[in-house]
């Protein structure tokens, strides 16, 4: 049984329009130098700060994944390997570096030399080197924000102060580079917009607790993540998420799910294999298996458990977001707890862990994570491996085999249970 019926609402088109408008802005900046642009990492990004300068973010990861999803990532990866990058290096890095070497962009438009390369290396040491290389290749200034890793349940006061101080230094740096005065009011308004976008996004995430879930909180959530990272601090972002919430709420009211019949509810851990995004999605669609929650959709920010940016304390709340409220910078026990809550509160049948070869930092320890869920909590857990960017690491037959076997076993367990009842 092949089931490819999927939710395609107006938000999918709106998302596309918003992302194209963003790339057009970047293209304009490449020609005119206006608006100023800042390269940043998705995880714990401080896009609100940029609003204080009317600056636009560039996300090298988004460029890389856009190429992968369009099946265009291998050429730039090979170009970077020709330059000496090793097979074990992160393929996001190689795809991005290769793009610059070869002058490739996801849309075919131009990408500007960033006004500032802002390395907010949250939970990922590779970024430090990646952004250093970008600065060298693009001959752009680099500023590194050192974000302390989450070593306990909450960050210490000095952790927050440390990041706030660096954010203030970033402001000074950007004032010098752009020749513009930092607009505090605009910054505060951006933080206000973010808090509203986050509230709407959180409500959307909670709709997936309903059965059937009105959207896939992994595959569809990825569609919604673009606007979340680029626009959440703007009125357009708030508007987008208002429309999205209304549209998905209407689906809930009508009892509509992702599939005609939602057969399985799963929690996804790890990024998707972007070069085989469609193929991968179909492997779940075949089983009418809907992701009701995912850790990947919290890479840029974890909002479904209550955190919001605070316009009354804009710098502190941006710092808190960077340190404590994105999955990448949180410690492993916190990630366990996040997934455990998803399984319990979102009523999932099992957990799928997708290890990506590129990202040792995100993936390290996932073998133990599998053991924790499967053995200690008794939650059916599947572990599969490939990559998020490099198409050479995706073995379709092996992946399909594991996914089919996992759902066969869940099917068997459900059938046995219903016989007992």
């Amino acid at each position, binding site marked *: *049984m092949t089931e490819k019926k999927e939710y395609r609402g107006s938000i999918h088109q709106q998302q596309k329009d918003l992302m194209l408008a963003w790339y057009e802005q970047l293209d304009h900046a490449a020609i005119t130098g206006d608006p100023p642009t800042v390269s940043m990492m998705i995880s714990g990004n401080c896009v609100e700060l940029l609003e204080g300068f009317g600056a636009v973010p560039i996300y090298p990861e988004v460029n890389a994944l856009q190429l992968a999803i369009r099946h265009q990532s291998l050429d730039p990866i090979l170009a970077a390997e020709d330059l000496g990058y090793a097979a074990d290096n992160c393929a996001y890095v190689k795809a991005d570096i290769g793009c610059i070497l070869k002058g490739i962009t996801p849309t075919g438009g131009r990408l500007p030399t960033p006004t500032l390369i802002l390395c907010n290396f949250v939970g990922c040491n590779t970024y430090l080197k990646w952004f250093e290389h970008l600065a060298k290749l693009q001959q752009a200034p680099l500023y590194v924000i050192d974000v302390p890793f989450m070593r306990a349940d909450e960050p210490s006061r000095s952790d927050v102060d440390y990041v706030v101080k660096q954010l203030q230094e970033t402001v000074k740096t950007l004032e010098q580079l752009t020749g513009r005065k930092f607009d505090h009011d605009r910054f505060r308004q951006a933080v206000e917009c973010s808090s509203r976008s986050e509230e709407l996004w959180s409500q959307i995430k909670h709709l997936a607790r309903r059965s059937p879930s009105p959207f896939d909180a992994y595959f569809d959530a990825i569609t919604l993540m673009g606007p979340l990272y680029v626009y959440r601090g703007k009125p357009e972002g708030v508007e987008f998420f208002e429309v999205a919430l209304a549209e998905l709420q209407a689906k809930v009211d009508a009892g509509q799910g992702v599939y005609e019949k939602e057969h399985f509810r799963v929690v996804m851990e790890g990024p998707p294999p972007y070069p085989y995004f469609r193929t991968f999605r179909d492997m779940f669609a075949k089983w009418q298996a809907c992701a009701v929650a995912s850790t990947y959709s919290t890479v840029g920010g974890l909002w479904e458990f209550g955190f919001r940016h605070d316009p009354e304390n804009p710098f502190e709340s941006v710092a808190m977001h960077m340190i404590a409220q994105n999955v990448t910078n949180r410690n492993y026990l916190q990630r366990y707890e996040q997934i455990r809550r998803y399984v319990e509160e979102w009523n999932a049948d099992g957990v799928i862990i997708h290890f990506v070869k590129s990202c040792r930092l995100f993936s390290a320890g996932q073998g133990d994570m599998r053991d924790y869920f*499967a053995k200690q909590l008794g939650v059916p857990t599947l572990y599969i491996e490939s990559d998020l960017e490099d198409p050479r690491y995706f073995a379709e037959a092996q992946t399909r*085999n594991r996914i089919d076997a996992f759902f*066969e076993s869940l*099917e068997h367990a459900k059938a046995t249970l219903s016989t007992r009842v």
Partner: protein
Amino acid sequence: MRIAAGVDVGSTQTKAVVMSDNGGVEIVARALVDTGANVQRAAERAFDTCCREAGIHTGNVGFVVGTGYGRYKIAFGNTQMTEITCHAKGASFLCPGTRTVIDMGGQDSKAISVGANGEVLDFVMNDKCAAGTGRFLANSAEVMGISLEEVGPLSLQAKHPVKIATVCTVFVESDILSYLAQGKTAEDILGGVHIAIAKRTLSLVRRLNLEPEITMTGGVARNIGMVQALEQLIGRKMQVSPDAQFIGAVGAALFALEKLDQSFESGIWRSDHAVSGGH
């Protein structure tokens, strides 16, 4: 009498089994062919040969379940299931009481936790690497010019098994050549190879709870050296059916028989979704 079949298209060999249920379930015939390049043809040959052995016309087989990597290429099959599910089922039938299956095939090694009804509770498999699989063994045999049938018994005669440092199926060849150059005996080298594979497999298997009874399945289970090397490391005997290589096909045939039994109330067929017929 109900007659059904299971066809397991593996990376190296294709296995077919015809089973009947006439008050008692039994294997009527088996067939084994090399898979080769034409997967569909291999499945047909195995199925046709098996039916011939059973003395029945293919049209009299009520239901066929395909399994293994080539399962979607079985044009005559009624549906497909993964070999993981089929191995659990087949092992429980042939070796009652099975709670853990260690399956070593041509390119896969896997461990499966099995429930009381032959259902899969959990499983782990090798990923992106053929270490600990039949291929590792086949490569070692080839580089030494010894047939695959001989390597197991020879390994048992090792007096001082060598240490094979690599777990890489490709680089093991240079390790072996180096030991041959040092004048090590074939028995000691093969002893080392078997221990290396057993250790590699065990590190995978230990990710599950190794509950007895443990049953070894797959083509490598025919290798007595491998069975004993694993038993030594695990510290207990494993069950090995004479039909170990056919267990995936047996499991598939058992599911096919269940499908023919309209009164069958429990198990995987009960759900309207059940296993799917395509991809």
